[in-house]
């Protein structure tokens, strides 16, 4: 029995697949000293996988994770001599809300096209944009860049975790899915809407619910951030 468990654990650890993407960028240093960077509302949802694998959204985890990501990102900017500007969460301007939706869509497309299976055969350069309407943000928040962050994360419930082990022991070959993390962030030039830097990853480990781990995750995502 114990031998079986050892084999299983070995298998479990090495089956944790992940891919970290290489950042894509058009700038490696900011075009001015101490640029002002506007942090857009983070598009985040954290859920708990039930025994059967349903994804139950968790409001506490989401709130904590969001706060942790903001703190960690502020630290990233401090080290790079950039200034964080806060977005007004009660923003009612429909055009600005559309920009956030557009970024999510384009971010998914970048992942599909630049890293994923749907590479565009004729698109060789990294030249993505969310359009000139970003000037609305530049004028309203007096910022040079905006950072958009998208975050989805799942954590197994205790039942799910044990089920994973039991299934692997009883039915070798069937691997129920554990939690996985999908994140991406992009830096948008508010003069022209161009995405000047982008990074994302998909992996089955990492945690943002506590500040220490969130720091690691955010540092990893913004490892090669300009500045």
């Amino acid at each position, binding site marked *: 029995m114990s031998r079986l468990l050892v084999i299983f654990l070995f298998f479990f650890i090495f089956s944790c697949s992940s891919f970290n993407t290489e950042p894509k960028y058009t700038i490696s240093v900011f075009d001015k000293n101490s640029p002002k960077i506007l942090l857009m509302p983070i598009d985040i949802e954290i859920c708990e996988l039930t025994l059967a694998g349903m994804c139950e959204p968790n409001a506490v985890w989401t709130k904590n994770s969001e706060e942790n990501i903001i703190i960690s990102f502020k630290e990233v900017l401090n080290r790079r001599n950039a200034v964080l500007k806060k977005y007004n969460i009660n923003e009612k301007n429909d055009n600005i809300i559309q920009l956030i939706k557009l970024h999510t869509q384009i971010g998914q497309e970048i992942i599909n096209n630049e890293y994923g299976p749907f590479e565009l055969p004729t698109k060789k350069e990294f030249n993505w944009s969310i359009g000139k309407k970003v000037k609305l943000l530049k004028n309203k928040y007096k910022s040079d860049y905006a950072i958009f962050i998208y975050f989805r994360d799942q954590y197994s419930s205790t039942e799910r975790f044990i089920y994973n082990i039991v*299934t692997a022991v009883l039915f070798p070959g069937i691997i129920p899915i554990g939690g996985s993390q999908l994140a991406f962030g992009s830096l948008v030039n508010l003069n022209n809407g161009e995405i000047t830097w982008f990074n994302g990853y998909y992996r089955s480990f990492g945690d943002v619910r506590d500040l220490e781990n969130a720091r690691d995750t955010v540092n990893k995502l913004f490892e090669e951030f300009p500045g």
Partner: protein
Amino acid sequence: MKKVFLYVMIFFTSCSTPIGGAKKVEDIKPQEKPSIETTEAGLWMQMNNYEEKLKTSGSRLKDKNLEKYLKNILCNLTFEYCKDIRVYVQDIPYFNAFMAPNGMMVVWTGLLLRAQNEAQLAAVIGHESGHYIKRHSLKSWLDAKARTDLMVLLSIGIGVGGVPAGGNIFNITQLLQAGFMAKHSRDNEREADKIGLDFLIKSGYDPREAPKIWQNIIKEMELGEVDKPLAFLASHPAPEERIANLKKQTEGYENIKNKKNMKELKGKIQQHLHKWIKNEIRLNNKLEQTEFVLDKTFEGTGDEYLFNFYRGEVYRLKGDIDDNYEKAIDYYNKSIKEKNDFPDVYRELGLLQLKNKENDKAKKNFKKYLEIAKNPKDASIIQSYIN
């Protein structure tokens, strides 16, 4: 090995939600918000995000007045919950309405087209409000969680113990699962129906209109030979049973003359009617089904000319097969007989005659169109046909 399995089973059954536990969920109180550590707060969070996106979605009908009108109906029905429920109209030409756990109610334009009067619409709005008050989304979620957990345990159990008949273990458990879910969902619908009807009666609407909207949709499905139930009906009680229930509950009100407010509803949707009917026709359903929808849309409105015009449109848009164009022209002529100053019919009639190479007749109708239409956008194109 079996011993380990037993321990695992004991662990699972002790920590997962007991089946039927969801029934203990109480009604939501007016202005109540779930506290953040609950499952319900998670569902609300997700739907709040969805709602933010829906607000600026291209599929949302840009008609604040119509949404306000629906909200007024809602507030008259469910006074205490007026602040808690927001109503959005989505421009999708199917019969559907739904309620999210956080108070976001969405009504599709296909339903607004089919509701014959305000009482029928109020029946739907009241029904959806019932889902909110009874916290049906939360109940369904908790129930689905418990059922799927059970399914997993059964799968392990059957997988270890073996299935005597040698069948596929997932088929058996999924079948059980589907049965449970459907029954649960039907119970919720019955409950919402009852609440909706109570609201309807209290607010002075004719309760006998409630079963009518369902009767119409069933008839329509039969005519369209729709195998799959429409989205709204997929998880609902068998329509026949639902109608019988609703009729039974309205028996005591036979002699009360309550309001239907047909004119109000028709007035509010007037400006969209043309586009909605066009979209309905473009679904390319069976002819009988589309004609039935038109028949019900114009029933009692006295707008015979529009009814005939759109019947003509149905045949025109079906294309030049059989004698569709001849039939379309017949209906257009009938429309003109009813009312001789409706511009659109002259344009469509002219365009069909142009295709049939009846140039003189076509020109005459184009001229009439330009004469009575007030600065139409296509004036210069139509003028070019005349020249």
